């Protein structure tokens, strides 16, 4: 083996070794890396009950309610399998609307109600002019209100 050949193998081995180590580490920490839980995880009891975590899903159409004279809002988050009711007091982001994907950070309260401290809106990867969106909406195209957690769907299938 020439020295050049040896260096080539060495560089290859370094990259492979580090890639392997990182893969193992990431797989091992998969649970802790989870940025948000889905409503199915929450109802199945996979989410922690004693500490703050995030839950992500779509705001169910027609579920949004605001208590009169206060900033407290209640809505139902769904991943089209299970639902979680969320209560949040405060200003909601601009993109918040029914049928929109959002992520709420908070704790589980009584009776499975999720008490959010923070609500973030998640936008999808579709970009289109308003008239195109109108046409799609008329045709009931799924893309206009895409379910957000694409990664979650795959995970659930595992």
């Amino acid at each position, binding site marked *: 083996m020439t020295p050049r050949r040896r260096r080539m193998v060495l*560089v290859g081995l370094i990259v492979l070794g580090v890639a392997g180590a990182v893969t193992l580490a990431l797989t091992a920490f998969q649970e802790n890396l989870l*940025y948000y839980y889905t409503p199915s995880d929450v109802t199945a009891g996979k989410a922690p009950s004693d500490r703050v975590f995030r839950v992500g899903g779509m705001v169910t159409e027609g579920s949004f309610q605001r208590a009169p004279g206060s900033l407290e809002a209640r809505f139902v988050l769904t991943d089209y399998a299970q639902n979680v009711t969320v209560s949040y007091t405060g200003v909601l982001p601009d993109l918040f609307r029914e049928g929109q994907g959002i992520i709420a950070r908070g704790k589980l309260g009584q009776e499975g109600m999720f008490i959010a401290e923070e609500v973030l809106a*998640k936008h999808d*990867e579709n970009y*289109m002019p308003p008239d195109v969106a109108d046409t799609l909406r008329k045709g009931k195209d799924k893309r206009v209100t895409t379910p957000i957690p694409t990664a979650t769907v795959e995970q659930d299938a595992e």
Partner: protein
Amino acid sequence: MWLWFHKLSSPPYAYRTAGNLRPWFFWPAIIMMAVAAYGGLVLAPPDYQQKDAFRILYVHVPSASLSLMVYVAMAVAAAVGLIWRIKLAHAVAAACAPVGAWFTVLTLATGSIYGRPMWGTWWEWDPRLTSELILLFLYLGYMALRASFDDTQRADRASAILAVVGVVNVPIVKYSVVWWNSLHQGPSISKLSAPSIDSSMLWPLLLMMLGFVLYFAAVLCDRIRSEILKRERNASWLSETLVGS
């Protein structure tokens, strides 16, 4: 092919070639970016949900893809330098790092400005955002490691290993939105099915990306030249070239 490779790795030849190529990258890049900016900011319609705010993606997306592309270029150059012991390859890698770091800063800054009105937060420890931040630290670490050696050859070898090892982070940045639940949305254009962005909004984006790539090539030519000047400051060919011109 090999002959050309060897010829290009000689500093005088590379110095001249980079100087000759530079205007061919620079001016088309400026024109493309100007046209794309007009297309993206004026011609493209507002988004159905995000209105005019989506237009920041015309800076955010190209700089994000460049931040990854430049890292891959840097790692490949560093690996070539390690394996074939070509000094010029190390010079190329060293020239890539600051440019890539700036693209990463631009990505994080525009992403933060974008995230505030859309998501409702400047920063979240989301997989995509965190891995992009690690990318910035890799660039900065590479530059810091280089700066800590007085001897160029030792700086070259040590930093090259860091650059090669750090390439592992590139697929993590790219696929973080697919592998994990993420606040950041999934890919719109770099996927196998049709792009999920309307064609009236897509063409300025693609043109802007091409403009960014050419701009990077032009800046790289300049940086390679100055890197060669620094390394070959005592060489006789250099005094001949500079006095001659």
